[in-house]
Every structure is written in C-alpha cells, then in structure tokens.
C-alpha cells in the first residue's frame, strides 16, 4: 500500500465516527450580542416586546448562532455522562495540519426543523458524515464533512442540523 492509499484508508475510517455530544443553554445576552455581531439590527433580538409584537413566543436566535452556542452555553454541570468514544473535530483538523497547509471552511448548511428561542436548552450529537481527497490545481485537497444534530432537551423534538465541509489544502 502506498502513502496515498494509506491516507485514503485513514480517511474512510473517519466516516461515521462520533465527534462529540453536548448540552447547551441559549442565553439572551449572547443571542442579542451575536445578532449585533452579524450586523442584524432587528429589534426582535434585543427586546422581548419587539419579539412579541412580531408574533414570536420569545427572542429568536439568528440563523447561524449555532456556531457560537458552544462558546456561550456549554456549561460544565449540564454535560451528558454518555458521551460516545470518538474524535473531536479539532483533533481531525490538528492531524491534517501536522503536514502543513491551510484549513478552509468550504461549505456550511443548516436545516431548521423548528425555531429555537433564548432560554431553550438543546442536546447535540455530532459525527463525521464524509471524508475524501481530491487533487486540484497542484494541491491535495482533503474534505471532511461533519454533522451536528440538535434536539430540544425538554421535548426531544429535532431542532437544528448543522453540516460543515472543512477543507485541508496542501
């Protein structure tokens, strides 16, 4: 087996591996400030009275806020005990970067199964859904697609699915 075949086999072994499980609380302050951070000036993110006037049951979260809720709401005492054995996304990135090169965020997809609001608690589980290599313009491009599926912690309802395509360019 040559190096390239070995790399392809290592990549295919990544598919299906768990990347983590976490419980997050969506707090109002971080939600409101994140909206400002993406230049969304809508008053519904700042004032529950404006949200109510717009017919909403609470302060909604911006469509890309799931990229920040681990930072703001993953409190230690809330974390589940049954985290599956797996590999963290940071670990995958680290091992790709050990050969040098550059990491790019290639694509991002969100599926919104139901709206979520400040005050909600969500439970998310992640896995690697695809991993492959391509040669392009003299570069070796490695693609790793990870998915996080978030459920409402109280009702168990599916809330948000997030899929990220991370590219390592060497």
């Amino acid at each position, binding site marked *: 087996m040559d190096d390239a075949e070995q790399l392809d086999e290592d990549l295919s072994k990544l598919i299906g591996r768990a990347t983590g499980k976490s419980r997050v609380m969506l707090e109002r302050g971080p939600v409101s400030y994140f909206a400002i951070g993406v230049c969304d000036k809508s008053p519904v993110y700042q004032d529950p009275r404006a949200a109510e006037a717009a017919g909403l049951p609470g302060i909604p979260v911006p469509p890309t806020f799931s*990229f920040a809720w681990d930072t703001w709401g993953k409190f230690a005492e809330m974390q589940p005990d049954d985290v599956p054995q797996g590999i963290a996304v940071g670990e995958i990135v680290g091992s790709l970067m050990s050969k040098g090169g550059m990491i790019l965020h290639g694509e991002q997809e969100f599926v919104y199964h139901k709206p979520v609001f400040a005050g909600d608690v969500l439970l998310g589980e992640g896995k690697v859904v695809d991993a492959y290599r391509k040669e392009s313009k003299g570069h070796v491009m490695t693609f790793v697609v990870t998915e996080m599926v978030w459920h409402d912690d109280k009702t168990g309802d599916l809330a948000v699915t997030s899929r990220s395509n991370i590219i390592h360019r060497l």
Partner: protein
Amino acid sequence: MMGTLSVLYFEDVKEGDEAPVKKHRLTRTDMVRYAGASGDYMPMHHDEVFAKSIGQPSVFGHGMFSMGLLGAAITDWVGKTALTRYKVRFASQTWPDEELRTQVTVTGKTVDEGRRHLVNMECKLLNSEGDVKVVGEAQAVLPSRS
C-alpha cells in the same frame, strides 16, 4: 422600530422577486466584534501581524460573518423564524473596506405534502466589483392567505 415588522405572505412572492439589498462596508472592528460574539479567535481574522506572516495581505473576514450578514438580509425579508434550510459555499475571502452587498432571489415556490408553503431562494454576498464571496440557497416557510 417596534411593531413595524411586516409579514411576507406566500401569495406576495413570485419567482424572480428579490429581497431588499443589505449593504455593509467591512471593517476590522466588525471582525473583532464577530470574533467576540462567536468565540472564533482564529488569528488571521484579528491579528494583522499574524495574517501577514502567513502570506495574507491583511486580516480577512470570518466566512461565518459573511453567512450571518447574508442570513440577516434573508430573514429581514422572510421573517426571523421562517427559514427551513440555509446552505452556502464560501467562494472567496472578504477584505477590510470592501463594500459587501446581498442578493437574494426567489427561484421557486411549492406547497409540500404537509401543506407548508415554501419559497426557495438563491442567495449571494458580493463586493462592489461583483466578486462572489458567498453563494448558496435558502428555503423558508411563509404564511398563506388561503
């Protein structure tokens, strides 16, 4: 502002319609604010010395800032809780002082088996030269008058 949010109905939208354009001149302060708001402190987005050391002309914007800005334009139009899907490809980097503008176009309408009234959109973030920064698609469920 409060109470002035208008509702977009399924019947009000047709293929080819465009959402109001959102324009924003990107600043280094935007990058620092987004880093703080998101927790993404990758140094090439706020540390000019680091960015130059890896061969970049300056700091550059977070891809997720671009997706967030475009998402603001989409949800300003369809409603803040209307999205069912939102997907983008990060086509090129954004640079300080670029004027970014959104382009959101309706590509189709459907009523699904669950009687949801869905609108499909193509969405782009461009600079003033027309270079595409982010390109993708979004789907929203809208209220119906029927």
